[in-house]
């Protein structure tokens, strides 16, 4: 893909924003400002940034419980995401969802699903609606390698291919479903090949390379818009941090983590830009400063947010509009 300075800066900045935002989340979690589960995307940033680059505001996005990166890359503000994690009314889900359930219909971001595989059928339905109403939209569905073992994965891929729906499936293969390695879960560990069995175009992509992901996603989205049915990208990646902050990481070697960190999306992208003589043009300090400011403001916003009155507890169980 054609990588100019503007795009290089955008990619680097967006990945760094996710990285720094989540580092702050860890700190806030330790200080008990954020509670519940906290699943970090650190190491996988290139996928969200690369895929979102290929979308228009009209497209729809569904993600999992490890979705801070997708939410930020889709354009939900750090303020509203952090306020959500604080359980405040100013949060993107009014504090009803928390870290695992970020929703924002303005950016067509439909969660934030914490049942592994449970978002895939929804993506199929959203795409079905677009096809029936002849809308020019693509639905992108993110999920992990763990979802591949679920029946809903297979049912959904079959429906999407059978009905030729405009869905882009993004499998973020970080090699572990919580603590169980892919080879202990799957008889066939090439996930793209499974998708191919449903007669949809699929391929493996280096999920550590933002440009590889962006290029593959752009091609995929163009094909889907041209009416060629669903498409599947398996992005090979690695989660640098524990599954959640309750995870003692007994199931993998530290050396393996270190090896993957050397292949991390930020370091490799920086090396690439250096080789292209673009890095010297990028003012790293300026980007860091801007991100620090965004995060500081998000923390302040979340701290000063409002706790929803307990009197409103039973709101949003049914719509207020009455038949």
């Amino acid at each position, binding site marked *: 893909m054609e990588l100019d300075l503007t795009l290089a800066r955008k990619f680097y900045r967006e990945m760094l924003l996710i990285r720094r935002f989540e580092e702050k989340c860890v700190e806030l979690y330790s200080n008990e400002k954020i509670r519940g589960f906290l699943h970090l995307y650190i190491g996988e940033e290139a996928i969200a940034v690369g895929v979102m680059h290929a979308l228009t505001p009209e497209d729809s996005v569904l993600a999992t419980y490890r979705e801070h990166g997708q939410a930020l890359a889709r354009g939900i503000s750090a303020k509203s995401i952090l306020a959500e994690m604080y359980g405040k009314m100013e949060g993107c889900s009014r504090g009803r969802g928390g870290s695992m359930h970020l929703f924002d219909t303005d950016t067509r971001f*439909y969660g934030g699903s914490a049942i592994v595989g449970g978002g895939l059928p929804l993506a199929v339905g959203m795409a079905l609606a677009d096809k029936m109403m002849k809308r020019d939209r693509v639905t992108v569905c993110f999920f992990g390698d763990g979802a591949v073992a679920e029946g809903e994965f297979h049912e959904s891929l079959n429906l999407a291919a059978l009905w030729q729906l405009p869905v882009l499936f993004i499998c973020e293969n970080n090699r572990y479903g919580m603590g169980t390695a892919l080879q202990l879960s799957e008889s066939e560990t090439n996930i793209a090949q499974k998708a191919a069995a449903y007669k949809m175009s699929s391929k493996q992509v280096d999920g550590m390379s933002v440009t590889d992901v962006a290029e593959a996603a752009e091609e995929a989205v163009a094909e889907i818009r041209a009416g060629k049915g669903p498409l599947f990208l398996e992005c090979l990646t690695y989660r640098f941090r524990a599954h959640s902050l309750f995870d003692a990481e007994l199931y993998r070697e530290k050396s393996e983590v270190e090896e993957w960190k050397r292949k991390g999306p930020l370091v490799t992208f920086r090396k690439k830009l250096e080789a292209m003589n673009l890095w010297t043009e990028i003012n790293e300090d300026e980007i860091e400063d801007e991100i620090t400011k965004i995060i500081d403001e998000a923390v302040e916003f979340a701290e000063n947010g409002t706790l929803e009155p307990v009197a409103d507890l039973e709101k949003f169980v049914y719509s207020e509009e009455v038949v």
Partner: protein
Amino acid sequence: MMSKDTTYREAVRLGISEAMEQDERVFLMGEDVGRYGGCFAVSMGLQEKFGTERIIDTPLSESAFTGAGIGAAMNGMRPIVEIMTVNFSLLALDQIMNNAATLLHMSGGQLNVPLVIRMATGGGKQLAAQHSHSLEGWYAHIPGLKVLTPATVQDAYDMLGLALKDPDPVLIFENSLLYNSKGLLDTSASPLPIGKALVLRSGKDLTILAYGINLFKALDAAETLAKEGIDAEVIDLRSLRPLDDETIMASVRKTHRVMIVDEGWKSGSISAEIMARINEQAFYELDAPMARVCTVEVPLPYAKQLEDAAIPQPEKIVAAARKLMEEA
């Protein structure tokens, strides 16, 4: 349209057909709803009328097509998902419970799910333990869902329209034994809203609360009881969630004796919930302990005499009513 001998099946079909004519967002999706005409022939002829794009045959993927119904509803459509029987709906329970019922709340009010799920329920056809259960009471446990149980031909028609107009997920349970039943249908009558129970037979001695096919067993029983001088009030619950506490309590205050007929098992059932509410709201109105006629706590068997013995029958209702009247 006014007709005296419309079948329940025709009423549901007419409801679907009219809704699809009026609203391009409405479509029907499920196993064998198109070319086959529906496993209970409810949608017979609809694919010819509306085409394969709006009457959609699905593979045997309850979870994915129910979830797809939710996704389509989130994205502006008004889907009707048909699941063959309530037992099969358990394959879609994840989508119904974890998505349909929770999305509005989890999203802080941003995403409502205007989805209708229809399914057949109930025993009595010798279909044994994987096709015959009455699990609507389970679904009534779940905040975020509405659970409707049309018994009459009029409600078979009306409830579909009401459910499609509702902004939230509505489950409609159709007793498979009712599809051939005939009754009065007036399509111009204004429908009784969701959440309203209906007193179908007024009486002064005891209240019988029932829904679905058991409503007719209760009405049969009431006729027998009338000959013995027992004047039973029979109420069609119509909706298990929300329950119409007001109509129930008004009847309790009138008759002071209560029986609930429910094809679910007793333990943890909707009948248990109704008893609990009467205890909470009208305990001192009761002249006798409340009675229940439910399904015996076995998976439903194949053999006819065993299945008949397992589910509520008019004779059991009559016997329970007599006993209830003997209490001080």
